[in-house]
């Protein structure tokens, strides 16, 4: 962009909305506990999500103990094993990833990045967190009920999910469904806030096409969540009735133990449709915020404007829309009409186009950039690599004919862990290293961060790459013990042991990360207001961490997009969004 004098088009429009009246906390309790400040709510969301995520991490260790060394840990019987994998999956996908990206980063970054004082409805926003906490507690309570948590697999397919023989069918499944219903109610409260804040409460000069891609990702994901969660809500309500009232929404006529059960006439496939109508958008609800955040990390730490900003925005929107018409690619082997497979395979593969556009644009942003290999940047680069390798296996699974033999093997486990487990988690770490200075005023320890990155990045490859091979051999997922079979060679068992050891090391690295979080809070290097020399508004706040109301007296005015790095003729190699001229005058 060349320096030019401000023309009529640059004149900032007048305020359309009066400045927000904020709720001013009157006591310690309303300031730090029942806070209506989005930044506090964000930290509450993040800490709760990390805490329950830690439970899921421990569960994954237990799963790996069993898979790697099936003869040694006899306390992990089949029942416990199924409970571990189920809870691990559900916690990671919903209670950690969704909550952290939208409730955590969404709450923290939306008001700051678009120049608002707070979310539009702070009180509802606060309720959102407390209902989320309740959902987490109900979920955690299922560990302590008779029969334990549900072991139906994270997809909770009926009829098995509620029948005798499935672990946790006594009460675990009920608590799981209630917890999901609560989560959705809580999320809807927050989600309405995020959407309305982005649409209706931006700063003067902040047009939609000047928003950082982080906000585009979170915004699109939230819209998707508001439209996808209803399907899960309905599915959960109906299964709850099947379990508690004896209805037969999802239950066909069943003979169990020689006895004809009272169920009959329901449609198990209906649940799968409802679940995946939610479940597939859910993948992108997690992925789109990651796409957005990683774009900003790469641009900031490569000191270069994002390549193809408009394309990036449209790719996010297009992926979001497409993800609503691909859900049945999770159901190729469910017994649905096979000709549906053609339609869903086509739509699935079309998603590769906008996704590839994004990957190319990230790489082209790096091209001849001034790359600073800071910890956030390392995680961002790690994301690109992981996402590409995870995405490519999606091409195998998206094709109906290739999917059928691979379905329910470790190949699937490897695919979705790479693409929606590891890749978004790497972005979460990158984002925490990037924004922690804004939240606390201190930098996270750099050395510990780098050790954390390399262990996690290389370690996850050591875990999940061999799983592809196991899957191609035909090793099934969800099996408590493989036993002796003709098609699984001994070397597969050795490989499983290797994977488990890698998993323990990666897990231990996360403890280092948690230690870093706590240590840096007290001992970290003071960060100043804008340690990464970034352009976006959250780094331009008068105070760090930003005070209640974010901006002091004057609301910021936005004059440019979020990516003015290394602009020729500018005094510094970054031009903040609220700086009127290049020279900073």
């Amino acid at each position, binding site marked *: 962009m060349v320096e030019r004098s401000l023309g009529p088009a640059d004149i900032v429009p007048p305020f359309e909305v009066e400045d927000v009246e904020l709720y001013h906390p009157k006591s310690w309790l309303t300031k730090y506990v029942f806070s209506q400040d989005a930044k506090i709510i964000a930290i509450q969301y993040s800490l709760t999500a990390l805490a329950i995520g830690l439970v899921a991490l421990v569960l994954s260790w237990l799963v790996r103990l069993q898979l790697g060394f099936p003869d040694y840990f006899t306390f992990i019987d089949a029942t416990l094993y199924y409970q571990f994998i189920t809870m691990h999956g559900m916690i990671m996908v919903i209670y950690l990833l969704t909550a952290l990206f939208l409730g955590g980063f969404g709450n923290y970054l939306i008001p700051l990045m678009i120049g608002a004082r707070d979310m539009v*409805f702070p009180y509802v926003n606060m309720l959102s967190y407390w209902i989320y906490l309740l959902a987490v507690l109900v979920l955690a309570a299922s560990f302590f009920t008779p029969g334990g948590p549900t072991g139906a697999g994270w997809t909770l397919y009926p009829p098995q999910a509620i029948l005798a023989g499935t672990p946790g069918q006594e009460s675990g499944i009920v608590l799981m469904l209630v917890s999901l219903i609560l989560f959705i109610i809580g999320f809807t409260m927050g989600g309405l806030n995020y959407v*309305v804040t982005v649409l209706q409460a*931006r700063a003067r000069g902040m047009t939609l096409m000047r928003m950082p891609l982080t906000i585009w990702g979170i915004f699109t994901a939230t819209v998707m969540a508001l439209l996808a969660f209803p399907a899960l809500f309905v599915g959960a309500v109906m299964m709850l009735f099947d379990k508690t009232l004896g209805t037969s929404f999802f239950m066909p006529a069943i003979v169990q133990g020689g006895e004809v059960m009272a169920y*009959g006439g329901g449609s198990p496939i209906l649940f799968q449709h*409802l679940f995946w109508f939610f479940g597939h958008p859910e993948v992108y609800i997690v992925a789109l915020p990651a796409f957005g955040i990683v774009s900003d990390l790469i641009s900031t730490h490569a000191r270069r404007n994002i390549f193809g900003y408009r394309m990036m925005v449209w790719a996010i929107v297009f992926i979001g829309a497409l993800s609503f018409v691909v859900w049945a690619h999770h159901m190729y082997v469910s017994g649905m009409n096979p000709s549906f497979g053609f339609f869903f395979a086509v739509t699935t593969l079309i998603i590769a186009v906008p996704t590839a556009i994004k990957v190319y644009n990230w790489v082209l942003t790096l091209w001849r950039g001034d790359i600073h290999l800071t910890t956030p940047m390392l995680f961002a680069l790690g994301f690109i690599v992981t996402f590409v390798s995870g995405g490519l296996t999606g091409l195998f699974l998206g094709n109906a004919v290739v999917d059928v033999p691979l379905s329910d093997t470790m190949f699937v486990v490897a695919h979705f862990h790479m693409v929606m487990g590891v890749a978004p988690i790497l972005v979460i770490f990158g984002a925490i290293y990037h924004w922690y200075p804004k939240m606390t005023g201190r930098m996270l320890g750099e050395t510990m961060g780098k050790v954390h990155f390399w262990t996690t990045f290389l370690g996850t490859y050591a875990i999940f790459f061999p799983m592809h091979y196991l899957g191609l051999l035909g090793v099934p997922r969800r099996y408590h013990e493989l036993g002796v079979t003709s098609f699984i060679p001994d070397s597969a068992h050795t490989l499983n042991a290797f994977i488990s050891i890698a998993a323990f090391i990666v897990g231990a690295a996360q403890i280092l990360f948690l230690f870093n979080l706590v240590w840096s809070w007290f001992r970290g290097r003071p960060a100043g207001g804008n340690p990464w020399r970034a352009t976006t508004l959250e780094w331009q706040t008068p105070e760090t961490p930003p005070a209640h109301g974010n901006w002091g007296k004057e609301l910021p005015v936005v004059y440019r997009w979020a990516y003015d790095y290394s602009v020729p003729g500018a005094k510094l190699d970054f031009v903040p969004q609220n700086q009127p001229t290049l020279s900073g005058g």
Partner: protein
Amino acid sequence: MAHASPTAPGLSHARPGGWQGIAADWSSDQRAFKQVSWGKAMMWIFLLSDTFVFSCFLLAYMTVRMSTAVPWPNASEVFALEIAGTHMPLILIAIMTFVLISSSGTMAMAVNFGYRRDRRKTAILMVVTALFGAAFVGMQAFEWTKLIMEGVRPWGNPWGAPQFGSTFFMITGFHGTHVTIGVIFLLIVARKVWRGDYDREARGFFTSRKGQYEIVEITGLYWHFVDLVWVFIFAFFYLW
């Protein structure tokens, strides 16, 4: 030049109409919907999300109606009443529908008087709307009682597919909950209108935001939505 001086309000604000206007609004700053307040935008988006909930319920109902192997009970006979010796199919549902749609009318009038800041008429019309709503829920309770007395349960009924009872209780129950919540909100807002909270912009107990007559319209949006959903339930569950 440190800060561009803000233009006077309305100076460059003649926006084009039609699609060009929408494009101009969406490419502008601050707000995408220029005439829409935060509260109204939030209600609209919530209703969009709620539409998906009810759509999923209705689609699920249609699916189980197709998947069940037992014949579906004849709704117009199940919901018939004997009044003064005459057998009248669907009569109660017809009255319920009439009551609920009438309540939409009184609600629309309440919104109108709200914007005229006519405290008394607004409050009275909202209370009338709430009474219609309560009457609807009351008749629904009567209908539930009658069916339960006749042996309809979520897990079975005397006339055919057990899914008939399951979907009936689930969908009308979920809709009835919506109506009940609407009645409660109508009464709360009507009380505040009556007290004049919105004339003196009294602050909300929880939110400490200034109250405005617009809340009448937002409540109205919700109420009309609940009515509209009933029309679909009526068409798909009772008439089909």
